[in-house]
């Protein structure tokens, strides 16, 4: 396996961006010392075991767990199943989609982040058989396990929007930041073309749980800012359609955003769900809970798809059987231990979990160590000791150069990690975090260090 560090250096040695060089100088003194302390090593008290552990999904959650388990366990057979070779830094998509970052910044390689000594099966899980303690891949290979970590992320259900075509993002004023790095780039093309002239913009929000529920709001703030910069704000109308009765599930943030939008002249239509789109004619249809249908023309639309568990989880015995998470097929885990409620040798991590809020990389940052510790406890024959409080975080871009750093828990309580951070204060520091510091933090999470 290539050394992740050396590859990253070669990639960045030729980066022409002189800002990076300047900024790099600030990290010299501390980083040199930190380097020694942070060199990867096996935990001194690694648990000896011959357990077979399968991790389904090689996104942030899967890789972070693999790195941690391979340090915490001695002798375990760890297998990651996922065909995806490219690793995308999804939290950077909003920066790409609003013209702040080049797309290269959100593209890495999974191979550079995986620990050594694990098996990587480059196939997809086609079937979960938790009663037989096995997964079956799309080539038909059956992989048996003693313990399973489900980290498949979620499914973007664009099919629920009639007429929607993901391949058309970037043309005809069609934007959607979610599906991929290329869609984020194409979204910026659409936004850039739109801001040159201005016009009618429709921003949407579905009724399902979302990954990074702040992203639709960031896109709205940034669109307004881009129009203002281009001098076309007064020639434009930016309208937000939420399929819910709010725009964000945490009440204080919801209120704050609505007040800001009122000041920025962004009207919000609640309980208005995007159900169909005619891309060529630039017309979108919304329905109310009563079934009333409204068709609107637009020059620019940002489509946020309904989200649910991937079919492979949804159609397995693993999802919630009843309650609010059953419809989306979300994984039935205990929200504190993140252990499956019916299959005690199964844990869930990341976006797939049927837990309140919490579908962000920041959630994975705080929950990957908990899943790892609890799984190690279970392997050692103990009960899981660690509890997750639902920590979620979202740097909410307000405009180029300023953001809010919003952190909260399952209960929707604001939980700033540093007491001096004011979550409702426009802040350069929050911006700097998003622009420069959170990707290194993400990589450290993936490597299982934080």
């Amino acid at each position, binding site marked *: 396996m290539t050394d992740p560090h050396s590859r990253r250096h070669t990639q960045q040695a030729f980066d022409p961006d002189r800002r990076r*060089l300047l900024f790099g100088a600030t*990290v010299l003194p501390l980083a040199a010392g930190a380097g020694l302390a942070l060199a990867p090593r096996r935990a001194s008290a690694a648990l000896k075991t011959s357990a077979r552990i399968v991790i389904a999904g090689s996104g942030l959650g899967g890789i972070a767990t693999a790195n941690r388990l391979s340090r915490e366990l001695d002798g375990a057979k760890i297998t990651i199943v996922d065909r995806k070779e490219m690793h995308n830094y999804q939290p950077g998509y909003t920066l790409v989609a609003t013209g702040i970052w080049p797309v290269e910044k959100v593209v890495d390689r999974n191979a550079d982040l995986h620990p050594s000594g694990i098996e990587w099966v480059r196939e997809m899980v086609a079937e979960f058989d938790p009663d037989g303690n096995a997964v079956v891949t799309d080539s038909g290979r059956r992989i048996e396990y003693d313990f399973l970590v489900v980290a498949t992320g979620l499914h973007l259900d664009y099919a629920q929007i009639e007429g929607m075509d993901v391949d058309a993002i970037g043309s005809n004023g069609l934007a959607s930041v979610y599906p991929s790095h290329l869609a984020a780039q194409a979204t910026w093309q659409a936004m850039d073309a739109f801001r040159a002239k201005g016009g009618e913009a429709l921003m949407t929000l579905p009724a399902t749980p979302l990954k990074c529920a702040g992203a639709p709001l960031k896109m709205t703030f940034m669109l307004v800012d881009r129009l203002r910069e281009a001098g076309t704000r007064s020639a434009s109308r930016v309208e937000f359609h939420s399929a819910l009765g709010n725009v964000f599930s945490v009440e204080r943030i919801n209120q704050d955003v609505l007040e800001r939008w009122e000041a920025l002249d962004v009207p919000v239509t609640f309980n208005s769900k995007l159900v169909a789109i005619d891309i060529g004619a630039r017309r979108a249809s919304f329905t109310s809970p009563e079934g009333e249908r409204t068709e609107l023309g637009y020059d620019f639309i940002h489509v946020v798809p309904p989200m649910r568990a991937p079919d492979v989880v949804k159609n397995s015995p693993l999802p919630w059987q009843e309650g609010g998470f059953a419809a989306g097929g979300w994984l039935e885990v205990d929200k504190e231990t993140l252990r499956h409620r019916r299959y005690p040798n199964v844990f869930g991590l990341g976006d797939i979990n049927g837990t309140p809020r919490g579908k962000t990389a920041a959630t994975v940052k705080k929950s990957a160590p908990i899943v790892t510790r609890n799984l190690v406890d279970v392997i050692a024959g103990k009960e899981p000791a660690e509890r997750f409080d639902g920590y979620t975080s979202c740097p909410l871009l307000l405009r180029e150069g300023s953001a809010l750093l919003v952190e909260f828990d399952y209960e929707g309580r604001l939980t700033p990690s540093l007491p001096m951070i004011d979550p409702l*204060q426009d*802040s350069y520091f929050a911006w700097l975090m998003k622009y420069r510091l959170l990707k290194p933090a993400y990589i450290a999470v993936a490597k299982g260090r934080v």
Partner: protein
Amino acid sequence: MYDIWLALNILFELFLGYLPLVAAIVVAWLVLMAIAFGRGRPGWRRGLGPALMLALLVAIAAFLAIPSLTKSSLSEMGYWVDWANLIAIALGFGGVALALAWPLFATLRRRFR
């Protein structure tokens, strides 16, 4: 504790990303130190004043430039946390400048026996 650990990790990952630059600065510092100790007696005390002046200038320049180099501006400094971070980063630049400038000025002001 966790946040200090997180901050160290962020710095470490940044450090990895800037390794060529970091290496160049370390090499430059070693060369300057070697020269300073090479011939004669380096004038550490007499070199400190100008080195501090230069470091201060670099810190001020960084303070003014960093917001725009990170696609923001001084007018976006919302509250004291923003100012404190900007000052800390600017002082970081100043510290690196001091580390390079001090042996340089100590060499320029050395005494030969």
